[in-house]
């Protein structure tokens, strides 16, 4: 960001990056971009299984379905992170799922990103009902890799970050979300990182 630059210019560049399907120049959290699910190519073959998990209430919080190794994940509410994590693992996808409270995020980085070769893109869509859905083709999460799903809840808005970590994934250490704190005068909390852990992969 330069000082002559405005919000509109920065947003334009990001949108152009989406259109040209290339990484934006300054996109530290580009893995959070809609339609650009960064996943590592690997060689795991997911088991053929179907698992739809229901939580209390009329709408399932999430659904995991498997068609010939292609795993479709639908998240309709940010509840039961542990349940989703287990459902993915039951389907052969090593996963770490953390839904953080408002204003908090997991401290980054959670681990090592997969190596340079074999990166590929999937897509993340939003359904009419507001659910998030994405698909993992066989091998998108490698044998020694973990699918990391975490929320980042800012000032009234939130996003789901989906990424792949190679090797060990550190537990989610809650820190104050930086998303809504972009140097603006309306920053609500200036407190330092607070500690806390939620579920970790395992």
């Amino acid at each position: 960001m330069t000082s002559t630059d405005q919000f509109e210019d920065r947003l334009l560049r990001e949108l152009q990056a989406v259109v040209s399907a290339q990484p934006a120049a300054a996109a530290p959290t580009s893995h959070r971009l809609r339609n650009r699910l960064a996943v590592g190519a690997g060689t795991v073959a997911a088991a053929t299984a179907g698992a739809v998990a229901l939580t209390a209430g009329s709408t399932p919080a999430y659904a995991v379905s498997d068609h010939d190794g292609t795993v479709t994940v639908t998240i309709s509410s940010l509840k039961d992170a542990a349940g989703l994590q287990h459902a993915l693992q039951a389907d052969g996808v090593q996963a770490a799922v953390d839904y953080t409270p408002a204003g908090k995020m997991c401290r980054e980085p959670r681990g090592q990103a997969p190596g340079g070769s074999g990166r590929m893109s999937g897509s993340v869509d939003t359904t009419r009902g507001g659910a998030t859905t994405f698909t993992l083709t066989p091998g998108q999460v490698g044998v020694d890799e973990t699918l990391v799903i975490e929320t980042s809840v800012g000032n009234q808005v939130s996003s789901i970050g989906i990424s792949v970590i190679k090797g060990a994934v550190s537990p989610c250490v809650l820190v104050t979300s930086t998303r809504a704190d972009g140097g603006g005068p309306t920053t609500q909390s200036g407190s330092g990182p607070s500690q806390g852990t939620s579920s970790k992969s395992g």
Partner: protein
Amino acid sequence: MSVDPIELIARDPHALEIFYRVHVEAIQRFVTRRVNDPYLAADLTADVFLAAIEAAPRYSAARGNPQAWLFGIARNVVSAERRRAARELRAYVRVDGQRFLADDDIERMNDRIDAGREARALYSALLDLPKGERAVLELVVIDGLSVTEAATALGLRAVTARVRLHRARTSMSRLQLGTPASPLVTPLETS
């Protein structure tokens, strides 16, 4: 057969830039006539253009006025955000618009938010209307579209839009919200 420039925005960064520069201010005004948080306004602005990029391949020039088309998209985006907020269902992925906001951008967004105060009050009042009736009236009285443009934005026939507008005005007076004397209330933007 020539390709409409709007269709190109989904794949051509240059076409996107032209389209974006023409409409970005109008969209920020559109958004700040509905929300009063600069960060949320930034995110919604990003969402509107993303949704437009996604919808562009299905754009038909026959639908006319690109701004009306974009306003229709913007209305859906803001409504979706409102529904999500109401249900506390916030599970979705988006471009993180607010992370591009610097201090002076927030100041400019707050200026728009100030300018939109009257419109936001009206927008809140319209939320009491039945859903089908609200859309047309909203675009006409909040955003200053003509009935024809509102019809374009909502994918309705003009005559249908006109009927709904009439019904909405009737509902408004029933709800004692005050009836706009003409489809176009005085311009809401003063600056």
